[in-house]
C-alpha cells in the first residue's frame, strides 16, 4: 500500500501545531480587545436621539445647572431624566417653532414620552447609586466626562467593571470637595493650583460630608479683602492647604468617612 502522507507532511504537522497555538492566542487577544472595544462598550458613541439635545449649549452656553434636569442625583440611585415639562418650561417661550423641537412639542401635546436612548447603560445586575457617589465627593465629570463640551451626548468611559473597580480600589484619586461636584471644569489641585480645606463642624466629633469647606483661593486673603471682622462672630476655621490630588484625596477619604478599598470592592456593594 502506498503511503498516504509523504515525509513533508511531518513539517506540515509541526507547523500546524504551532499555527493552532498561534491562532488560539490570537483569538484570545482579539476577544480580549474586542470586549473592551467601543464596539462593545459603546464608549464615545452617539446614538440617534429623538432630539439632538446639546449639553454643550445648555450647560456651557446657557449655564443651566446639572440638577435643573437631573433632579434626583443627590437623593436617589437614578439621577433622573427630565420630564417633557422641564423642556417646555423654557421652550414654551423660546424656539417655539424650531423644527428640531417638534418631538418635544409632540410629546407635550400627546402625552407620549420622548423615547431617549440610554447612553450610560449599566447591565441590569449592577446596582449603582448616584446619591452615594454625589454625596461622597465624586463629581459628575469624573464618570460622565466634560458633558459641557459635548454637543451630542456620549459615554466618556467604558463603564465596565474594571473601570468601576479602578476607583473603588483607590477612591482618593477621584474625590473632590462636595461643593465642586457639579463643577465641570474642576481640576485636581497642583502646586500652582492649591486648594484649601477646613473641617467645619467638629462639635459632635463626627464631621459630616457637607461640613468640609474647600476653597480655591487662599482663605485669609479672601477674608481680608472682603473686610470681614477678624475674630468676630464667625469662628475662624483651620484651613489646610493641598497641592496634589493625593493629599486632598486622603484628607477627604478621612473626613467623608469613605469605606476602605476592601469594603468598596466587595461583590455585594454592586451585585445582589
Amino acid at each position: 500500500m502506498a503511503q498516504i502522507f509523504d515525509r513533508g507532511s511531518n513539517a506540515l504537522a509541526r507547523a500546524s501545531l504551532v499555527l493552532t497555538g498561534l491562532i488560539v492566542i490570537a483569538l484570545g487577544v482579539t476577544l480580549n480587545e474586542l470586549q473592551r472595544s467601543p464596539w462593545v462598550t459603546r464608549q464615545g458613541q452617539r446614538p440617534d436621539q429623538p432630539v439632538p439635545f446639546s449639553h454643550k449649549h445648555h450647560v456651557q452656553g446657557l449655564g443651566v445647572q446639572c440638577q435643573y434636569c437631573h433632579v434626583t442625583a443627590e437623593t436617589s440611585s437614578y439621577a433622573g431624566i427630565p420630564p417633557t415639562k422641564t423642556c417646555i418650561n423654557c421652550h414654551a417661550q423660546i424656539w417655539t417653532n424650531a423644527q428640531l423641537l417638534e418631538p418635544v412639542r409632540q410629546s407635550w401635546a400627546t402625552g407620549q414620552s420622548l423615547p431617549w436612548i440610554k447612553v450610560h447603560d449599566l447591565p441590569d445586575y449592577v446596582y449603582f447609586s448616584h446619591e452615594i457617589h454625589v454625596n461622597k465627593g465624586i463629581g459628575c465629570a469624573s464618570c460622565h466626562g466634560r458633558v459641557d463640551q459635548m454637543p451630542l451626548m456620549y459615554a466618556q468611559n467604558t463603564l465596565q467593571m474594571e473601570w468601576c473597580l479602578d476607583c473603588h480600589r483607590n477612591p482618593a484619586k477621584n474625590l473632590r470637595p462636595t461643593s465642586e461636584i457639579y463643577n465641570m471644569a474642576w481640576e485636581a489641585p497642583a502646586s500652582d493650583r492649591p486648594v484649601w480645606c477646613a473641617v467645619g463642624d467638629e462639635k459632635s466629633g463626627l464631621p459630616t460630608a457637607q461640613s468640609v469647606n474647600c476653597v480655591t483661593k487662599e482663605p485669609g486673603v479672601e477674608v481680608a479683602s472682603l473686610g470681614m471682622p477678624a475674630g468676630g462672630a464667625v469662628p475662624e476655621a483651620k484651613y489646610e492647604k493641598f497641592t496634589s490630588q493625593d493629599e486632598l484625596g486622603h484628607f477627604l477619604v478621612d473626613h467623608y468617612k469613605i469605606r476602605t478599598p476592601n469594603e468598596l470592592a466587595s461583590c455585594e456593594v454592586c451585585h445582589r
Partner: protein
Amino acid sequence: MSGDEMKGQSGTEALAFDDGVGRISEEHTSGAKAHADSFGIDAGVKTPAYEPGVATTAEPMTLVQIRQELKGVKGKRYWRSVDELANTPEFQAAVEKEFPGSPHAWGDEVSRRGFLKFMGASAALAGLAGCTKQPDEPIYPYIKAPEDLILGKPMYFATAHPFVTGAVPLLVKTDQFRPIKIDGNPEHPYNQGSSDPFTQATLLDLYDPDRSQHVTYRGENREWAEFAVELRNKVISTKDGTGIYFLSETITSPTLARQWREVQAKYPNAKLIQYDPAIAGTWPFRATQYSLADADVIVSLDADFLSGASFPGFHKMVREYAARRKSPETLNRLYSIESTPTTTGLKAEHRLGLRASEIPAFTAGLAKAVGVPGVEAPAYAWTDEQKKFLAAVARDLKAHAGRSVVIPGLYQDASVELLALAINNTLGNADKTVIHGQEVVDSLLRQWSSIEALVADLNADKVDWLVILHANPIYTAPADLYFASAFDKAKTVAHLGSHLDETGQISHWHIPSAHFLESWSDARAYDGTASIIQPMIDPLYGGKTAHHFFQALLDEPGLSPYEAVRETWKPVIKGDFETGWRKALHAGWIEGTSFAPNELVPEKMPGILRAPAPSSKDALEIIFRPDPNVYDGRWSNVGWLQELPKPVTNLSWDNAALVSGATLTKYGLEEDDIVELTVQGRKVNAPVIVVPGHPDNSVTVHLGYGRSFAGRVGSGAGFNAYLIRTSDAPFYAVGSMKKVEGKWGLAVTKSHFQDHRPKLFGGQGNGNNSLEADEAISERGIIRYATLDEYKADPGFANEGETHTTTDKSNTLFPNWEYKDNAWGMSIDMNSCTGCNACIIGCYAENNIAVVGKQQVRIGRNMQWLRIDTYFEGDLAAPRAHFQPMACQHCENAPCEQVCPVGATVHTPEGLNAMVYNRCVGTRYCSNNCPYKVRRFNFLLYSDFETESLKLMRNPDVTVRSRGVMEKCSYCLQRISAAKIEADKENRAIRDGEVVTACQQACPAQAISFGNINDKQSKVAKLQADERSYQVLADLNTRPRTKYVAAVLNLNPELQAGPVEHPAKG
C-alpha cells in the same frame, strides 16, 4: 418503586409510607437509572452502593415497630416525617442526595460523546456571549413628573386588606406607584406591622395574569356602562326590587353596608344574600375578643388561633401569646384540644387530639369540672388519658381564675362557644382576658339559611336578576343544594369577580373586579378600627367593585366609590373633614373607631347548657376546614400559596385526606394512595396522607382545591371537597372511606433538604435518620429545649455538652475574617415561632423567588430561600413538634465558600455570604457542602421573564435569577445596602432596627431579630448573648451568624410524664 414491592420486603403487615418524595414519574426513574448504569453505578434505591456508612440492609418498618422504636428511646428524639421513622427506601433515597430525586434535568441518557459535544458548544457560546453587545435601552421619561416621587426610592401608602375575619391594616411599598411589597401597618394598634401568608400573597393575586380583563355579555366584550344602565333600568322597572337578588361574599365594608341599606330603603323587596363558604355558620366572633397578654393559662377548644388569618384576631393573639414566651419568667401555658393537628396544637404544652364530635362533650365535661352551673355533659366512654387531661386542665384553670382564657374553635358546634363563654364567666375572665365587643358581622350565623332560601327562590322561579358579587357559588355552594341546576332558573345572572371562574363561566354578564390595591373602600380590623382602603394603582383591567353595583341603583348612580367612602366617614371624622380625612389616609385608620367593650348580655345564655353527644367511636368523621394556603379557593391561582408547604403536613400543590397512622393501618392504606370519601352518598376521590397526632377514625379534608376554572396555576390541583360538603354538616360529617386504585403523586417537602452522614462523619450511623434528626437526638441538638423546671435548675441547658467553643477561631485552615464595622446576625426565638409561614411568603415577594410547579417540588427543587422545619417528637399518635425556620446561616467559616471553583459565593467584609449570580456556573458544590441545606439551584428557567403583569411586581432591587444559577437567603442584602447608603450619607453608623429583613417584618410572633452583633447594645446582640441561644451544628466549626433561642416549656407537672401510648389506638 411500587407499594407491592415494599410489602414483599417486610411481610404482609408492612406499612410502607410514601409521601411522594424521591418518586418521580416513570420516565424519570428509568432515565435516572439508565444514566447511572452507564457509569457503572447501581442506581436502585434499595442498595445505595456509594454510601459507605449507610446501613444498606435497613428495611422499612411497620407501624408497630415504629412505636417500639419510639418507646425504647430515652430522652428526646425527633423526626421530621413518618418516612423517616419507617426508614422507607424513598426516605433513604431522598437523604442521600442534597436534591432528592434525580438531579438530571434531561430524561434521557447523556453519553460521553454527547457531553463533549454539548460542552464544546457551550464553551464556544460562553466565549461569544462575553462579546455580545447590550441592546439599546430606551428611557421613557414622564411628561409631567408626579409631585413627591423620587424615582428609585420606594413610597409607602397605608391601606388595609379586607378579609372576612377582619381587615389587616397595611403599609404597602410602591415603586413608581406599582405596589411591590405588602406588609402590616407598623403603627396600627391591631397588628403592629405583622401580617400573614394570605395578606402577603395578595400581591401576586393583583398581578395574576389570569385575571379577567373585559366586561362580557354571553362571551362578547361589552362596556361597563351598558351593564350599569341595564341593571339600573331593570331594577327601576321592578319598582320595589322584586326578583332582584344579590349574592355577595360577607360584606365587611361600612360603606358598602351603608350603600346596601340605601338600596334596600329604595327597593325593599331586593334581597341580599351573604355567603362565605369557609366561615358561614360560625360564631359571630366579633362579639367576643380575647386578650392573651394577661392569660397565664390558655385552653384552645379546637381553636387554631396561631396558624393564620383564618382565625379572627390572629395577628393580635399571636403577638400577645408570643410576647409572654420571650422570657422564661413570663411563660404562659397553652392546652390544645383539637380535631386535626395544627400549629396551635403542636405548639401547645399539652395537646389532646379528639375527634371533632367529641369536643363539645369534652367541653361540657370541662365546664362541669370547672364549676359552671347547669351543664349537662353527655355520657361518653372517655379513656383514662382523656379523663386525666380534663381533670388537669380544669384544675389549672381554676388555679388561674381571672388569669386564664378558654377559646372556642370557629368550626365547632355552637355549644362549644356557649360553654367556653360560660367557663370564662365562671372563672371571672370576662373583661380581663375575654372582652365583649359590638357585633359587626352578624350575618355569619345566618349564611347557611340564607343561601338555602336563595336556592328555594331560584327553584320557585322568583329570581329575575341574580347579581353575584365576589362569590363563586357554583364551586362553593353546599352539594345538597344542587346550586348549579337552580342557577339556570335565574333569568339573568351577572357576576363580579377577579377571574372568569366556575360561576363566571356560566353567568350572562361578567364584570372584572378591581383588586383591593386598585380600589377605594373601607374595612374594619378585628378590634373595630376602621381603615380606608386606598388604591395604589389604577385598575389594571378597568375592574369595578361592589360599590359601583349598589351605587348604580341609587339616586346618584355615577358617584364614585371614593366619594361614597368619604360620605360614610364625614359624620365620624371629627374636626375639619379634609384634615381628618388626610390624616386617616396617612395613618391608615380613623381615630376613635375601635369597638367599645360592652357588658356581657346574660340573656344570651340558656339556662341549661347542653352539648351534643359524640358520634360512635367507630364512625368515620370527615372534617372540613378551609385550606391554610388557599383558604376557600379564592387564592387558588396564587403560585406562592400553592407552592408553600402547608404547616404540619408540608404538603404543597394539593390537598389531601389527612388521617392518623392507626386509621391508615385500619383501612389497609399506604400514603399517597387514593381513597374514595363518601358522605350521604356523595363521593370524591382524594389522596391520603398521615399526620402525626391526628385523631383516629377521623379524616381532615381542606376546601379550596379541585378548581376547574381557577387559572393556569390553580386549575386541576387537588380534589374538590365541596362535592361532599352539605349545608347540614358543613364542618364535620360522618362518612366512609375506601381504597381505590392508583397513586396520586403528592408533593411533600418534609424529607427534602436533609443531609445524611454515616457514623464516620459524625452521624448516628444506623441509616435510620437524617443528619438533622440524628443530631437532634444527640447532644449536638438541632432542637434544644427544656421544661421550666429543667431551665430553673440549669439555665445554660442549651449549650450544655456543647464540645465546640464558638469563640475559638484558631481551629481552621482558612484565614479568619475580622469584622470591624458591621457584623450582621440574626436571632430566631424557637419559643415564639408558631410555624405560620408568613415569613416564607414575605421572602417570596421581597426576593423575587420563582414558583417551580408541582413536578419540580416533587423532586425537591422548590426555590424557597426560607423553610420551616417541623421536628416531631415522641409518640406518633400524640407528638410534640418544634418549628425551626431555616435559611442561610451566613457562616463566618462557610463551607460553601471554600468549594466554589469560580468564587461565585463570597464572604463580605460584614460577614454575609453573598452570591454573585453572574459568576455562578452551576457546579452545585456549594450546596453539596452546605450542612444546613439552604441553597437552591435553578435547574430550569423557573423565573418568568415573559409575562408582562409579573414584571410590574418584581422588587427592582433584587436580581431575577435565570437558569443554572445557585441562590439562597441574602439576609435581605438590598435592605442592608439601602440602610448603609442612608447612613453613609449622614456619616453615621446604622442604627439598631434600621435594617429589617422581610421575614422579620412579616412575622406576627416577632420571633426574628436582625441587626449588628458588633453593637453590643443591639437587640440581636443581646439575644445572641442570652444563655439560651445556641448555634445549629456549631461543632462543624461553621460559626453561623444565625442563632436560635432554645425553647422553654411550661409543662403542667400533672401531665408532665411524657407522651403516653394511647391505649385505644393500635
